[in-house]
């Protein structure tokens, strides 16, 4: 034995010497390990002499060696507390080592040193300055390590978590249910009198550290390793210190609902599995009784069956023990219905202040959950699902596919509770909901360091997860008694909640208002991704719940920049519409549905927006906006459409836009087509022609559809009937239609305004012509004139074949003859009259209207006989008309060729007109017209005429006049005319006095050529000739003198007597007054 001591010492010395020079770290460490073994375990007395030598290796270049030194210090201190003051400063250096592995090892060691130091302090009777210093160093290191939770290295963070865990465990008191290692040192063993480390302060610190830990678990970018470490640590803390159980369960629940988005699929699986294990561990702890419901819910979510959960539950006995303990002095309430129980609890809560522990257990999560359960009606849930449907990600997140289990017990109370719980954890994580607010209030009151860091939001991806969780929720089968017990504690805070609730309502209203203003102000700033969409959505919901005053402001705001605010405006309108019709579940959910009775309705908003937009200065932008508003709004009230008339006073661009809008309304909004068409029709009566020219074609285009036609015709007829009034009606004289002042009487312009639309529609809807005729008969002259003038186009479009026109002609209203005449004129101007038309006109002429003018247009359609019959009347008309008539008959205006009367016939017919029917002068004028047309009445034609007249049984009065005129016009016909004269002699022309006079005149004109004819006259007639025209005798005498004897011999002697003047004419014929048959003017040459 005596030999051994120096041997050990020697060996240690030798080993240390070797170690210092060993090149290999591995061997170095092995050697040092031997030294450690020797001086700590084999012979602790040697420790004092050699510890410095070993500690010196902390300067070794190799990190493993340094790590070993840390281990050595740890062991040494644990072995002998007296080592603490000597070795702790070394640790202080090592904690700042640059090698991560060393730091990790130091953190691990400090856990032990910390505990050892505190135990050392607690055990010491008096505190020496040395102790204080050690404690000071330890505290400094503690603080250094606390900051390491944010270290760059994941492994260091992991160790830091474990350090925090150990710290919490060390610096708190145990409880009866604590699960701890035998004989572990903690605050229990620290005397309250310890001044260096005040137990109260230590405990406070522990709470702070726990808060840090909870916050860390909630951070977004936590790695899966650290997350799991953190979870285990929290579980260990909860099991060891049941007072924190509530917080931990809460934190794990929130975590469950908000797994970090950075995890990969398998990491999610691992974390979920880990969570399950932690939850089971918690479940097994008797103190978790109050949280069984929450825990089982999460476990069910994680895919555990109820039987598995039941298996993991602590035994009934331990539970009962726990319940009994908890319920000291309270009568057991097992199966009373829920509501009365809450009331009871409330009373109780008022009577006695709830112990602090209970308040802590009722977390924000619970409060929000209770608040939610009431709100989770089927409608609300459906709404929530639909609303959040939009936010579903394109791809299924790994978390969802990993954790989805089908819902089997949907709609049961248990499941509602469960969903409420999940939502609650979302809301709490997002820092909203009554629970959070209340907890904040409580905290402010309590004044202690808040644990709200555990509620660190993880809104990134939060919405998505919320959805997946809603779907995930599975059946929760909880023993009834347990759930009842759970509610007991929650009921205690009912009072507080009721106190705060009304405040929240006003506050939230205020907040909503502020939020709305803020969002509106900024909503144009571009947001990435779905941000803009969300923004609009939020705005819409908010806008749905504002007061009428704000509504005004909002409208003004939106209209300030119509183009860019359009989307917003429309989503607002749609939401209002939905609210109005009670489609919107969201609004009902928000509690807006009921309020709408008092406030502005959809239509009010719509109309005020409309009016404001219309009141704005006309611009392209505004017109486009109006158009969109009308076409895209969910519903357009009819009265609003009529207000578009106002565009009429805002320039032609505006009108055109409005007209096109109306057109689109008509087409795409069938229920509104009637008012739209009516407005369009009104615009068609606009004062300005440019406006009308824009509007009418649109209307005509629309009228191609029969249904629209009817509506437009109605309007058109209405306007037409204005003409029956004495003066333009008020309806026509508005500012919008360009007639601000109501005129006293009809003017051409105003008449036209009424007529245009009607006439434009005529070709499409021909039956309207009857209305026109009716109006024509009764209206003022000004209007009549206009009608006649404007009629041409439409009538020409309608054409002769139009049955409606024919019908009109047939049933011509009294006084409407001019109209009909005009119509027929128009019809026949460019084309020969159709048979039907002729027939109708003839009918009308025969039965009702005796005006011959009526027939003129259809003359060419009448038969020869008819024409001849009316000819006397026709030629009595104004010379222009007569000319027109003749033109028609000659086919000058129309090259139809199918005239009932040839020019020959006409002239003959004129000659044959009875003197009774028409005086000679008129006929002469008419024939004069004929002779005027030398193109038509050529020599040949006239020869034909004469020929035909000659064949008449009695020669017409004007025959000779025509002969003479023919001779004047065409001297080359002299021979032919002489022939005619000769034939006249054979017809004893002298018997007809007027013809005879003409005969004589003709002979006079013909001069020498007529001598042979004269010589054929019987003597008395010749004498008569001489008496009328004495010059003829001398000329005849001289002519005879030139004759040969032979020729002279043919002249009868009686005739010679007359010629030579031996017999004077004493015929009984009275000589006609020359004026009676005026001779045609002498030929020019």
């Amino acid at each position: 034995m005596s030999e051994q001591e120096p041997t050990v010492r020697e060996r240690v010395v030798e080993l240390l010497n070797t170690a210092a020079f060993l090149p290999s770290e591995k061997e170095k460490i092995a050697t040092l390990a031997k030294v450690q073994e020797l001086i700590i375990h084999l012979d602790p007395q040697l420790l004092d002499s050699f510890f410095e030598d070993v500690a010196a290796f902390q300067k070794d270049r190799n990190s493993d060696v340094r790590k070993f030194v840390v281990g050595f210090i740890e062991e040494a201190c644990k072995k002998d507390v007296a080592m603490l003051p000597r070795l702790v400063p070394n640790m202080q250096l090592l904690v700042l080592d640059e090698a991560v592995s060393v730091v990790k090892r130091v953190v691990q060691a400090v856990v032990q040193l910390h505990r050892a130091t505190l135990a050392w302090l607690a055990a010491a009777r008096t505190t020496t300055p040395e102790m204080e210093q050690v404690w000071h160093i330890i505290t400094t290191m503690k603080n250094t390590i606390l900051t390491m939770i944010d270290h760059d290295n994941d492994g260091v963070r992991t160790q830091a978590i474990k350090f925090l865990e150990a710290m919490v465990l060390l610096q708190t008191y145990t409880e009866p249910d604590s699960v701890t290692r035998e004989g572990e040192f903690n605050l229990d063993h620290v005397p309250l009198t310890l001044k260096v480390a005040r137990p109260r302060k230590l405990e406070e610190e522990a709470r702070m550290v726990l808060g840090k830990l909870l916050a860390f678990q909630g951070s977004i970018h936590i790695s899966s390793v650290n997350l799991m470490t953190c979870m285990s640590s929290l579980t260990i803390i909860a099991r060891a210190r049941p007072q924190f159980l509530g917080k931990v369960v809460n934190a794990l629940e929130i975590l469950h609902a908000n797994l970090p988005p950075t995890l990969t699929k398998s990491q999610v699986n691992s974390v979920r599995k880990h969570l399950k294990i932690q939850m089971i561990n918690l479940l097994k702890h008797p103190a978790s009784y109050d949280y069984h419901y929450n825990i089982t819910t999460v476990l069910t979510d994680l895919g555990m069956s109820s039987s598995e959960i039941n298996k993991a539950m602590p035994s009934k006995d331990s539970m009962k023990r726990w319940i009994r303990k908890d319920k000291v002095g309270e009568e057991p309430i097992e199966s009373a219905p829920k509501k009365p129980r809450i009331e009871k609890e409330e009373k109780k809560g008022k009577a006695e202040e709830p112990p602090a522990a209970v308040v802590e257990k009722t977390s924000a999560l619970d409060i929000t959950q209770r608040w939610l359960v009431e709100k989770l009606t089927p409608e609300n849930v459906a709404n929530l699902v639909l609303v959040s449907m939009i936010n579903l990600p394109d791809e299924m997140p790994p978390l969802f596919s990993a954790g989805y289990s089908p819902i089997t017990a949907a709609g049961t109370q248990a499941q509602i509770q469960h969903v409420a719980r999940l939502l609650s954890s979302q809301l709490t994580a997002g820092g909203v909901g009554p629970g959070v607010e209340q907890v904040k209030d409580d905290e402010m009151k309590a004044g202690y360091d808040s644990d709200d860091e555990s509620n660190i939001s993880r809104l990134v991806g939060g919405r998505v997860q919320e959805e997946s969780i809603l779907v995930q929720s599975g059946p929760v089968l909880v023993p009834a008694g347990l759930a009842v017990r759970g509610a007991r504690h929650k009921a205690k805070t009912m009072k507080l909640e009721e106190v705060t609730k009304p405040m929240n309502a006003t506050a939230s209203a205020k907040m909503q208002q502020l939020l709305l203003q803020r969002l509106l102000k900024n909503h144009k700033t571009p947001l990435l991704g779905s941000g803009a969409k969300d923004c609009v959505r939020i705005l819409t919901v908010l806008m749905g719940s504002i007061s009428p005053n704000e509504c005004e402001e909002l409208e003004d705001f939106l209209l300030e920049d119509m183009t860019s605010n359009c989307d917003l405006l429309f989503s607002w309108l749609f939401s209002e519409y939905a609210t109005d019709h009670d489609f919107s579940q969201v609004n009902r959910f928000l509690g807006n549905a009921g309020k709408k009775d008092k406030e502005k309705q959809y239509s009010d908003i719509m109309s005020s927006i409309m009016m404001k937009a219309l009141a704005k200065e006309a611009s392209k932008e505004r017109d486009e906006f109006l158009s969109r508003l009308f076409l895209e709004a969910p519903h357009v009230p009819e009265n609003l459409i009529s207000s578009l008339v106002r565009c009429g006073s805002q320039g032609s661009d505006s009108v055109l836009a409005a007209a096109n809008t109306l057109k689109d309304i008509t087409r795409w909004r069938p229920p509104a087509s009637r008012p739209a068409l009516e407005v369009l029709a009104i615009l068609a009566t606009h004062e300005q022609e440019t406006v009308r020219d824009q509007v009418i074609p649109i209307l005509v285009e629309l009228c191609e559809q029969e249904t629209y036609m009817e509506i437009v015709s109605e309007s058109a007829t209405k306007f037409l009937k204005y003409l029956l009034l004495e003066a333009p009606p008020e309806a026509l004289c508005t500012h919008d239609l360009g007639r601000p002042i109501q005129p006293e009487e009809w003017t051409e312009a105003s008449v036209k305004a009424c007529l245009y639309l009607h006439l434009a529609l005529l070709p499409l809807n021909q039956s309207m012509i009857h209305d026109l005729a009716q109006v024509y008969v009764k209206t003022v002259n000004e209007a009549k004139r206009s009608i006649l003038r404007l009629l041409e186009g439409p009538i020409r479009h309608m054409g002769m074949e139009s049955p409606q026109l024919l019908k009109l002609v047939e049933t011509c209203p009294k006084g409407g003859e001019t109209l009909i005449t005009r119509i027929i004129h128009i019809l026949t101007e460019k084309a020969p009259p159709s048979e039907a038309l002729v027939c109708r006109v003839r009918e009308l002429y025969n039965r009702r209207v005796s005006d011959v003018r009526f027939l003129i247009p259809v003359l060419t359609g009448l038969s020869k006989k008819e024409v001849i019959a009316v000819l006397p009347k026709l030629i009595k008309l104004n010379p222009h008309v007569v000319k027109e008539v003749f033109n028609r008959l000659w086919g000058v205006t129309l090259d139809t060729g199918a005239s009932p009367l040839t020019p020959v016939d006409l002239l003959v017919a004129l000659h044959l007109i009875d003197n009774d029917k028409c005086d000679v002068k008129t006929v002469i004028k008419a024939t004069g017209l004929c002779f005027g047309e030398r193109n038509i009445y050529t020599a040949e034609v006239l020869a034909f005429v004469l020929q035909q007249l000659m064949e008449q049984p009695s020669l017409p009065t004007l025959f000779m006049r025509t002969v003479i005129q023919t001779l004047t016009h065409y001297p080359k016909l002299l021979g032919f005319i002489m022939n005619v004269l000769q034939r006249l002699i054979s017809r004893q022309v002298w018997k007809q006095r007027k013809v005879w006079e003409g005969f004589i005149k003709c002979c006079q004109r013909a001069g020498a050529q007529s001598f042979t004819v004269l010589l054929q006259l019987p003597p008395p007639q010749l004498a008569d000739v001489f008496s009328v025209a004495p010059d003829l005798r001398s000329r005849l005498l001289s002519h005879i003198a030139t004759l040969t004897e032979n020729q002279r011999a043919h002249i009868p002697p009686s005739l010679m007597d007359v010629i030579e003047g031996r017999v004077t004419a004493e015929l009984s014929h009275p000589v006609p007054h020359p004026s009676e048959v005026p001779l045609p003017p002498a030929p020019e040459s």
Partner: protein
Amino acid sequence: MKNCWEATGCEVSTERHGRRFTKMAELSFAVICSSNMNRSMEAHAFLSKKGFNVRSFGTGDKVKLPGPAPDKPNCYEFGTSYDDIYNDLLKKDKTLYTQNGLLHMLDRNRRIKPDPERFQISKDKFDIIITCEERVYDQVLECLEARIPEENTPVHVINIDIQDNHEEATIGAFMICELAALLSGTEDLDNDIDELLHEFETKCQRNVLHCVQFY
């Protein structure tokens, strides 16, 4: 040692990992399956051949081996040596157990270590525990959770699902070896393990479970 490494044909590049052989030796592995017979032993054999510091365990209540019928397995207590089991089976039905490869497997096992070990009763500490089945993983975690950590030394528990037959066990052993090499090749395991596992997952097309526990 390097030759031996190359001779295996393992895909892990020696260039990359050779330098850290010392480090690799430092990491202690435990490979765990249910009965410490097939999968864990296959991996044990493979890893120790590659020079890893490896142990193997089972987590079941008993060592179970296929019997003459599915409902009649051969059960042994942990601690019964492979040799004894070998002889027992030889006695029971030599042809059957030769045919299904059990005897061959036991023969291999008894060359590696004397008897199957149960993880739950082992007090040894490891750096990395690799389990071959999710149930085993759960049991390991359960066991580790139940202990209250003292010195906070981390241990990574990793699960790779391997079916319990010879072929899969061989493939599984390859994969475990690759994973072990991957993990050994890093300077700071705690910091890199997330990435390494992800790399492994994508490379092997297998899902792994992973968590960290403390001794």
